[in-house]
């Protein structure tokens, strides 16, 4: 390449320093990116590294190589969990994907009456901790459940119970991906199919299914990861059915065997990493499916089809409501099943173990902190990846590190934080047991979705904005504040509420990290249920649901008013 360029004797060779052009702006750019990579290193890479190192050490920190893994694989009680986890993952994924696909199809391909009501109900589980569905199920079909005899399987405590409860909780996650995928199909393909005389079934198999192939693969990968890494449900309703996630918890909390906990964590990372890579591959393939010329499909009325859709959506919604209403009802019953009178006794959390109302307040503080700090961090880091013109390889690394957390189960992240932040020689160990570590772990745990939302928003902005700003000699950070930030407000708001709701409901990462003064509501649910206080656990789960719902509604109206004010420049009205 350089051979083709004739040497130009007239111009001076440019010194390396000159090429770097370290004026104030370039300095800020570089400091910005270095700060981001340092934060991600401390909050993600180093903790995971610590986890890996601990898996190679015994309890007294002696190097034992892969001895822990050998011990693990020769322990039938533990390896049995691998099979259990895979069976659970396979069964639950097939059920959830089939149910959610049919529901998504009803939402996008039929003229069902009351679509928005159905959709609203289907999204309820997003606002609940996963434990809620398990507790509710116990009241329906448990040992003292109202419909105990109706449960078709041997016992609710086991595989069937876990599958049912997790289907409720993971349903909306699959629904979001599949609805988006079905919505993105080009209406012109349907018109072509109809004009060519294909019947609805043929159209379904030749247009609909191939068209959302990538959506289906992506949803399958995401749901499989959710199912195999969730531990709250398996803990509450799993009975003797051990899975990898509960094993980690038992090894660490029950037996204080941190090394074995690290080993199981690494085993659990394997399926998560595989599904993560499948999802990444799909994302790359999917990009070119829908272009600006595509037309959104608008279904025509069809009595038979819409009737089927209505019946199906009603059934799903009724089950959803049954789960949430039973949780609410059981939390109000004075003493199940002997005294069915209603009272608020179970809500007197200060009268029982588990953290009391303080835990609920802590959850609100922690979630608000995660929302504020997390949104700011995600904005700045996505901006760094997408808009800062320096060190492209470093920016790619930051992007990669921001996408990886979706493959790290919360339990694994929490355990790795113990290893890293609780190490006596770590200068950062003062944050152990504080709100800060809970907030950091939550931000990292939910980083990926926020990051991708923000990156997408930045990608939709014209790239010329930065060029114009530069030609006008206005520093890039001024334009970021005056132009880029206001333009991406909708995405910022979306990221904020996502972080809040998920921090309220999550239990996995924080279960290892809460301190004496930072007990959280979701952990209290777990602990109270563990202690046999199932009704107060249901009450606390309901409190989480109600507060998440209230904040979500308040937030929506706030967002609506805020965006209304910018209507003039957004839509020229």
């Amino acid at each position, binding site marked *: *390449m350089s051979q*083709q*360029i*004739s040497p*130009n004797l*007239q*111009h001076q060779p*440019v010194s390396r320093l*000159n*090429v770097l*052009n370290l*004026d104030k*702006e*370039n300095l800020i750019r570089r400091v910005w990116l270095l700060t981001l990579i340092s934060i991600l290193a401390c909050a993600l890479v180093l903790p995971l590294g610590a986890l890996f190192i601990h898996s190679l050490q015994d309890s007294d920190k002696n190097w034992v190589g892969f001895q822990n893994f050998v011990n693990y694989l020769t322990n039938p009680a533990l390896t049995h969990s691998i099979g259990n986890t895979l069976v659970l993952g396979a069964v639950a994924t097939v059920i959830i994907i089939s149910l959610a696909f049919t529901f998504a199809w009803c939402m996008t391909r039929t003229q069902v009456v009351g679509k928005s009501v159905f959709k609203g109900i289907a999204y309820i589980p997003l606002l609940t901790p996963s434990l809620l569905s398990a507790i509710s199920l116990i009241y329906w079909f448990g040992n003292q459940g109202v419909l105990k005899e109706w449960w078709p399987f041997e016992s609710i405590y086991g595989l069937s119970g876990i599958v049912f409860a997790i289907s409720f909780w993971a349903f909306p996650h699959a629904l979001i991906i599949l609805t988006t995928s079905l919505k993105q199909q080009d209406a012109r393909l349907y018109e072509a199919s109809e004009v060519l005389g294909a019947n609805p079934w043929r159209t379904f198999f030749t247009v609909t299914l191939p068209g959302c192939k990538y959506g289906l693969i992506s949803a399958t990968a995401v749901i499989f990861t959710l199912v195999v890494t969730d531990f709250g449900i398996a803990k509450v309703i799993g009975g003797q059915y051990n899975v990898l996630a509960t094993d980690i918890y038992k090894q660490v909390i029950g037996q204080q065997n941190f090394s074995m906990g690290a080993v199981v964590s690494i085993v659990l990372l394997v399926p998560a990493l595989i599904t993560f890579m499948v999802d990444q591959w799909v994302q790359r393939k999917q990009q070119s499916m829908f272009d600006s010329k595509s037309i959104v499909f608008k279904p025509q009325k069809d009595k038979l089809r819409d009737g089927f859709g209505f019946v199906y959506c009603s059934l799903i919604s009724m089950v959803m409501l049954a789960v949430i209403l039973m949780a609410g009802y059981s939390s109000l019953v004075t003493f199940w099943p002997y005294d069915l009178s209603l009272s608020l006794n179970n809500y007197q959390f200060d009268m029982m173990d588990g953290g009391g109302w303080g835990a609920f307040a802590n959850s609100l503080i922690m979630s608000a902190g995660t929302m504020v700090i997390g949104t700011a961090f995600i904005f700045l880091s996505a901006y760094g990846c997408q808009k800062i013109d320096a060190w492209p390889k470093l920016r790619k690394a930051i992007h990669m590190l921001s996408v990886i957390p979706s493959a790290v189960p919360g339990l694994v992240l929490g355990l790795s934080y113990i290893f890293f932040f609780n190490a006596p020689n770590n200068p950062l160990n003062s944050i152990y047991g504080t709100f800060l570590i809970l907030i950091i772990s939550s931000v990292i745990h939910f980083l990926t979705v926020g990051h991708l939302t923000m990156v997408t928003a930045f990608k939709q902005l*014209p790239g*010329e*904005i930065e*060029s*114009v*700003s*530069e*030609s*006008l*000699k*206005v*520093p890039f950070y*001024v334009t970021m504040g*005056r*132009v880029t930030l*206001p*333009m991406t407000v909708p995405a910022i708001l979306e990221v904020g509420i996502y972080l809040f709701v998920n921090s309220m409901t999550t239990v996995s990462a924080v279960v290892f990290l809460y301190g004496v003064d930072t007990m959280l509501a979701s952990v209290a649910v777990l602990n109270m249920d563990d202690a046999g206080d199932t009704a107060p656990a249901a009450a606390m789960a309901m409190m989480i649901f109600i507060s998440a719902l209230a904040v979500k509604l308040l937030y929506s109206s706030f967002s609506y008013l805020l965006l209304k004010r*910018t209507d*003039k*420049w*957004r*839509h*020229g009205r």
Partner: protein
Amino acid sequence: MNTQLDDKMRGQAVIKSSSGCHTINYPSAKHSYNTHTTFRDLMTNTTTQANSVELKSVHKYYDQFHALKDINLTIREGEFVSFLGPSGCGKTTLLRTIAGLENCTDGTILLAGEEVSHKPARQRDFGIVFQSYALFPNLTVAENVGYALKSQKKPKQQIKARVSELIELVGLNGMAERFPAQLSGGQQQRVALARALAPNPKLLLLDEPLSALDAKVRHNLRAELKALQKKTGITTIMVTHDQEEALAISDRIAVLNHGEIEQIGTPDEIYTHPSTDFVAEFVGTINHLPLTKNKPAIVVRPEWIKLFNSPSEQRHQCIILATEYRGATTRLTLESEATTEPLFADIATADCKLNHFHTGNIAWFELHPLVYQLQEEESQYNEQRATEPLIKQTQSRNSADKSTNKSTNKSTNKSTNKNTV
């Protein structure tokens, strides 16, 4: 040896004709038309106009892809230069390299005499307008225009005065408080122009500024843009793929193809004396005609052909193969014994109607006198070139140039590159 052969190939396009093989002689890559360059060259020698932009053997690579190949270009202060070419020819890359939005891999870039080859865009003095307007949607027209001034911490009163001056200049009176979304495309592009001009840059870069607009708006804005440029006297470079736009608006045009400048010259030079086949065909339709024996064949534009319904000595009989109605003119496809290939002629539609120039009819065509004049120039030029090697044998290269082209300017002769002007 190789380069000589190359030049020969470049200068000649071989076409077939009834009397054997004719060649069209394009002006050699190394020379310009004396008759067309002398006046301008004299001007540059006597005036003190500074060079606003100078590019010296600029190269740009994207990995293995050679996007810009040895670009040499000088733009004088106050000039309006267009980069014209098909998509992917490198014209936008060249503009962005001048702006500093792309790095050049090798070569030197001087803006107003100062070397800026490796400086970032913010350290170069220019304003830029994009095809997509790239206005700040959350800011009003006035805020957009005053964006750079506010950042410079100028007094409020001063900013206000400058902003209203610019808003008036681009004809947007009374729209200062509107948001971009409340303006039409043409109005938005005016705001972008005012915003680029606000800090009083020495150089204005326009990246396909009119391409996103409707035809009518485009034509109006084109004229206004030209008038505005003359009024402010700002050196301007515009990238466009629209040859008509480039011909109408520019002082000079650089035609690019495959990352190289094929030709640079005034619109008239580009249109009547295209130096390569590519340029000839990109800026219009051409006919290759062997006209008179012993004279070189040259490019003949369709409108340089006149059509009659009666024969005469100078006219050639032809049959009208096809007609294409274009409103003001009609394009006729003619077949004649004088040519092997069908001939395109643009005739006023009114004449076509009066003279019954319909498909299948017989007519007689004649070439516009300009064609013979151009041909005469071409012959002289060829003779002149034929004498060059003799002199070169006896004298050094530089003195040969001086003695053969006394009237032409130094820069043309010094440079060994066809792109330098």
